[in-house]
């Protein structure tokens, strides 16, 4: 069952993020897809994550698809102008890649080529709008017809905890108006703050127009915890979560991080309007089965096998 069908059917969906390798081989993607295939509904393939050069998102997505796991191809506005972005949608659709996740993208300053020209020809709202227009109107942005038009299921991202907090739900509304059909969020470590954002989302009726999948991470080590808290733009680790993960011996951090992730998933799944979760576990994919097992979540092939 595809991600779109599963969400449309109202079943709890699970997606996970993987980053393609820095190298000219899709083998690592194939191996990760084999590991996750039975556990998640779809896998996000990042687009030069953190502004670091990696194997192209479309190639990683194709490799996942061929390994039997549905991809969500991530597309940022950082590196390509409107011509290249529209061309990439046509290519992805032709190759059978249906799910596209649109985001602004990190600034080049943070990656391995800080001297690169930041493109940002379109912003994420404009890109969503452009892709929806291509699909629904069967034409490029300036009107020339597409034969055949692309088929796609369009996703957006949101960061509920970033300022201005009062504007974040409305910003999701803009993305939905532009074409977003599902949304995956930045890491949620503060469930109470997320629940508050969801109240605003429900007040605007947005949970009925778009499937919402909050992002859940599994902290692997104390270093990763500090890095996430201090260095990753837009990630907020509340003090109680930080203290909890620091309280266990260093060699237990990963286990405690996985427990916290499982508990977070359970709490999030109880919030009205949450359609699934997005596991931000790139580089730590082997933790996924354990987390989903202890959270009692059935997704992907596993759910179909067990009739869930």
């Amino acid at each position, binding site marked *: 069952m595809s991600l779109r069908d599963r969400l449309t059917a109202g079943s709890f969906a699970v997606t996970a993020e993987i980053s393609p390798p820095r190298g000219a081989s899709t083998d690592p993607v194939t191996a990760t897809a084999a590991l996750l295939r039975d556990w998640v509904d779809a896998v996000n393939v990042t687009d030069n994550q953190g502004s670091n050069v990696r194997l192209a998102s479309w190639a990683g997505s194709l490799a996942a698809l061929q390994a039997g796991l549905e991809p969500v191809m991530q597309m940022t*506005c*950082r590196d390509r102008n*409107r011509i290249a972005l529209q061309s990439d949608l046509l290519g992805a659709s032709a190759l059978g890649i249906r799910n596209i996740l649109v*985001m*602004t*993208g*990190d*600034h080049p*300053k943070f990656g391995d080529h800080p001297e690169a020209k*930041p493109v*940002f*020809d*379109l*912003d*994420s*709202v*404009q890109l969503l*709008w*452009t892709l*929806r*227009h291509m699909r*629904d*109107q069967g*034409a490029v*942005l*300036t*009107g020339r017809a597409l034969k055949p038009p692309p088929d796609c299921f369009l996703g957006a*991202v*949101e*960061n509920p905890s*970033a*300022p*201005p907090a*009062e*504007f974040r739900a*409305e*910003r999701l*509304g*803009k993305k*939905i*108006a*532009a074409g977003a059909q599902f949304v995956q969020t*930045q890491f949620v470590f503060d469930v109470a703050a997320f629940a508050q954002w969801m109240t605003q989302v429900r007040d605007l009726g947005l949970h009925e*127009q778009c499937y919402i999948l909050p992002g859940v991470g599994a902290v692997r080590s104390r270093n990763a915890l500090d890095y996430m808290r201090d260095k990753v*733009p*837009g990630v*907020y680790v509340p003090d109680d979560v930080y203290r909890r993960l620091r309280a266990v011996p260093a060699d237990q951090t990963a286990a405690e991080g996985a427990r916290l992730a499982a508990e977070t998933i359970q709490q999030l799944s109880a919030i009205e309007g949450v359609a699934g979760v997005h596991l931000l576990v790139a580089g730590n994919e082997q933790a996924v089965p354990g987390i989903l097992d202890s959270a009692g979540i059935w997704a992907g092939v596993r759910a179909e096998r067990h009739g869930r």
Partner: protein
Amino acid sequence: MTARPPIPAHPRLGTRLAYRLQRVLRPRPGLRWISARIEASGLARPLFTATERLTKDTLFGCRMCGQCALPVTGYVCPMGCPKELRNGPCGGVGADGGCEVYPERRCVWVEAFERAASQGRTADLQLLHLPIDHRRWGESSWLNYWQGRDEDLWTHPAGDTGDDRHVPHHHPALGGS
């Protein structure tokens, strides 16, 4: 394309005064007539454009994209955002409201929200801004505004769920026909 990289600028013009000036300077027959005369003159046009550049650079850190969004962004220039985002903030805003790229400066959208909210204008921030026309960098946006060429820069999202009829995708500024 642009002379200077985008850097968030704190506006030097108070919010209330900016909205008052907006009422005075909105397109009307007199201004349309004057702007047409200025445009037609080989001397007045560059002088006027240079004056606009100096004024708006001083007040808003303007980079002369030629398609001014200030009237609907709380008079904070979104082209000062390092990602030039015209539809709202990215996800990298710091907990203190700092820009992801220049943490010592405030995110232009945090400031835009505060300024728009202070005048009851947050509805402006829901407008969907179309992709800009990069051929228009360096043009006078005041002349474009008074000549009515800026009317398709943004559209209201209400009812915009699949129906593109009122969305000016094909307007000339986008290179369409």
